[in-house]
Structures are given as C-alpha cells and as structure tokens.
C-alpha cells in the first residue's frame, strides 16, 4: 500500500512525492546545529530586550490570543529568568544530541513561550514562522550527523516544511500589503516612512529620491510574488536564494532590520550536507603530514 501511494500517478500521490522527496540527513544535522545554536544567540545577543519584559509593568502586557488560550501568566522577572534558563539548557541539550527528539520538543515549547513574552507588549515580529516550523519539525527527522549523505523521507519532509515556511513568509506578505495597505501600496510612501524613521546614513540620499523608493517597493512585491520559485531548485532556485540573501543584506544596511531566524531557515535551501568538518580536518592533517614528510 505504501508503495502504491509513493508510486501512484494521482494528484495526492504527486503531492506526497513532493513533500516526502528524500533529502540527506547531513542537511538536517547542520540545520539542527544552526537552529539550536541560534536560540542561544537570540536569547543573549539578537533580542536581549525580551528578558527586560519581565521588569516592564504588567499594565503594559497585552497577551496574544495564544497566551490567553493557553492561560499563560503575565511575565515577571522570576518567570522570565526561569524560562530563559530552561530554554538555554534545553537548546544546549538539543545541540549535543544526535536525535534531538525530547530536547527539541522542549525547545519548541519554551521558545514559543519566549515569543509570547516578546510580542505581548505592542509589537509582533514577522520573521518567526519558518523558525518555529523548524523547531517543530527538526525533532521528527531521526538521528543525523554532519556530512551524512543518506537521504530519508523523514528528513525530506522536515526540510520541505522549513522551505515552505520561508516561502510563505514572503508570498503571504503580498496579501497582507493588499489587505492593510490597499492595491496601490506599491505607489505609496511606505519605504519613505521606513527611511525617515530608521534609515541609516547609507540611505539618507534617498530622502531626496522618492521615485527610487517607489521602484524599490515594486521590486519587493515582484520578488515576493515570485518567491515560490525558491522551491523549484536548479539554477532558478539558486538565483532566487541569492536574491533573497541580497534583499536581507540591503534591508539590514538600509534600515537596520535583519530577519535573523528567517535567514537561518533560508539556509535549508543550500546543500549543507556537503559540509564535512571531520573529512575536512582529516584532509588538512593528511596534507600537513605529506608536507612534513615530503610525501605525495
């Protein structure tokens, strides 16, 4: 029966083949290191302000729907400290585990709570969905180690989910612009607002060139509409990955906004399984040995 589904010709069989196309476990292993490593990096360096929310008066706390639904408590200094310590500890455990199953699930739950603490004070960030998906699916891919070329369906599904999360972030944002900004969003002055509020010295000259900012808006929407091409692979897919990294680099330099967790997930499109530190180190040792012995 399993064979029938995998080898069938119907639409459902084709959809399943796409979602479960086997991918190398080595890529899962590298992503686990990056994702769980980023959790620690995020807590201490990228968003250290989340921890401050425990001290902000509870009167400024407006829980998200998920906080209400799960009955999550109003952050206090103690609650924030406990969640922070448990999150960092579980991320460390997931980093050293080959399966990252139990530790991975704990990291997912605690990171979600960390996000509720982060985003319940008047501003929600929109660079998280692919990262939360990654935290949810990485524990399902089984044991994996760096450089492992063996491909499995479980790894394929996990990586596909992360990739789809990345694409959804771009593609669905076009609909949000149409809904909240109107169909004439592209001809508005939204980029001018961004430059006026947070522009770096690099983009100050653009204050005198509103036409260029409108052109930037058109290019952004075009890229977001074309973002599903990230999933086609090959030359087109690689070009789209390069454009995506370029876009985030420009945004970071221009207005200081970098979608860090999203960028970690963007790496799921790259052949990370080719990174083999052990083989690299062995190769280096061999070439050093041949140098000192004068061998071939």
């Amino acid at each position: 029966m399993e064979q029938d589904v995998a080898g069938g010709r119907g639409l459902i069989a084709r959809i399943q083949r796409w979602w479960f196309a086997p991918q190398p476990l080595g890529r899962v292993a590298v992503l686990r290191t990056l994702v769980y490593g980023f959790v620690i990096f995020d807590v201490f360096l990228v968003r250290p302000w989340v921890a401050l929310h425990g001290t902000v008066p509870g009167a400024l706390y407006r829980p998200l729907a998920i906080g209400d639904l799960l009955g999550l408590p109003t952050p206090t200094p103690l609650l924030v400290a406990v969640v922070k310590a448990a999150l960092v500890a579980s991320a460390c455990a997931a980093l050293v585990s080959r399966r990252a199953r139990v530790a991975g699930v704990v990291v997912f739950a605690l990171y979600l709570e960390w996000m509720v603490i982060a985003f319940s004070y008047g501003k929600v960030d929109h660079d998280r969905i692919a990262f939360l998906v990654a935290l949810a699916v990485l524990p399902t891919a089984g044991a994996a180690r760096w450089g492992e070329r063996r491909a499995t369906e479980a790894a394929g599904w996990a990586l596909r989910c992360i990739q789809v999360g990345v694409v959804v972030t771009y593609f669905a944002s076009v609909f949000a612009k149409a809904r909240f900004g109107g169909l004439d969003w592209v001809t508005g002055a939204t980029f001018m607002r961004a430059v006026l509020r947070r522009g770096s010295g690099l983009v100050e000259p653009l204050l005198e060139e509103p036409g260029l900012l409108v052109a930037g808006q058109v290019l952004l929407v075009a890229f977001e509409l074309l973002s599903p091409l990230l999933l086609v692979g090959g030359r087109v897919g690689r070009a789209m990955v390069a454009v995506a990294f370029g876009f985030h680099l420009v945004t970071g330099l221009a207005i200081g906004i970098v979608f860090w967790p999203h960028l970690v997930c963007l790496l799921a499109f790259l052949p990370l399984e080719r990174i083999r530190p052990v083989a690299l180190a062995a190769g280096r040792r061999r070439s050093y040995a041949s140098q000192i012995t004068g061998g071939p």
Partner: protein
Amino acid sequence: MLTRTQRAVRMGAAAAVLLLLAAGTVWGDDEHFPFGPFRMYSTRNDPNGTVNVVKIRARTVTGEIVSLRPRTLGLRPAEVNGQITRHVDDSVLAAKLARAYRAFDLEPPLEKLWLLHGFHQLRDGRAVDYWEEVRGTWSRT
C-alpha cells in the same frame, strides 16, 4: 521509509498549519501570532500625507529636559507605537511609561513626562516639513 500513518500525520500537520496561516492572512491580525498576517510594512503612507514618529521626553527633578529612548524603558520603539493604538488616552500611557522608568531604577527621578508625536509632512513622496505635538503628559504628584 515512513509508514502510511507517519505520512498521514505529517501531511495533516502541514495542511493544518498552512490552513491556519491562510486564515490568519485573510482574517487575522498580529494578536493571532504565530498565524497572523505577515504585515511587516504592509500599511501604505500617502505620498502627500504625514509620517509620524513617537518621542518620549521628560524633565528630571534637577530640571534637565531629557529624551528617553524606548529601549531604556524595556520597550522597542515599535512597541511604544503599538501601545499608542491600544490606549485611548495617551496620558494613561505616559503614566505607565513613567512607571517603567521607576521599575528599571533609572536616575535621576522624573518630575514630568511627555509623549510626543513628531510629524513629517510629505509632498510628492518627499519630506518637506516637520513639527511636534504633545499627546500625553504625566506629572509627579
């Protein structure tokens, strides 16, 4: 190779998340995180309208006028913007910000705190004028 059940569970989970994201995009808002719409920079500014910037200014007990960065109060600039839309009366928010200043044990103590809106007037997409208005005030009693 995954079993049929393992596949079904995974497909069900993926479909549920995609459906929730689609629903959030059409009907949801930021409060529905993580399934809310991806509305980063989604609102439109009229090329002949205004762009507003929120500022927090205060007078300390020593009489000095200082500009307070939201970060010193444990908030990000966009969070102060978000709080404004949640407060009908900006003076209530000004009082809460003064409380945050005390909660972080900042010195010197404040005597007065103003919540200001700065406005950049745009003409054909270019900023041509700037002014400020006081929207909320808190005074130490």
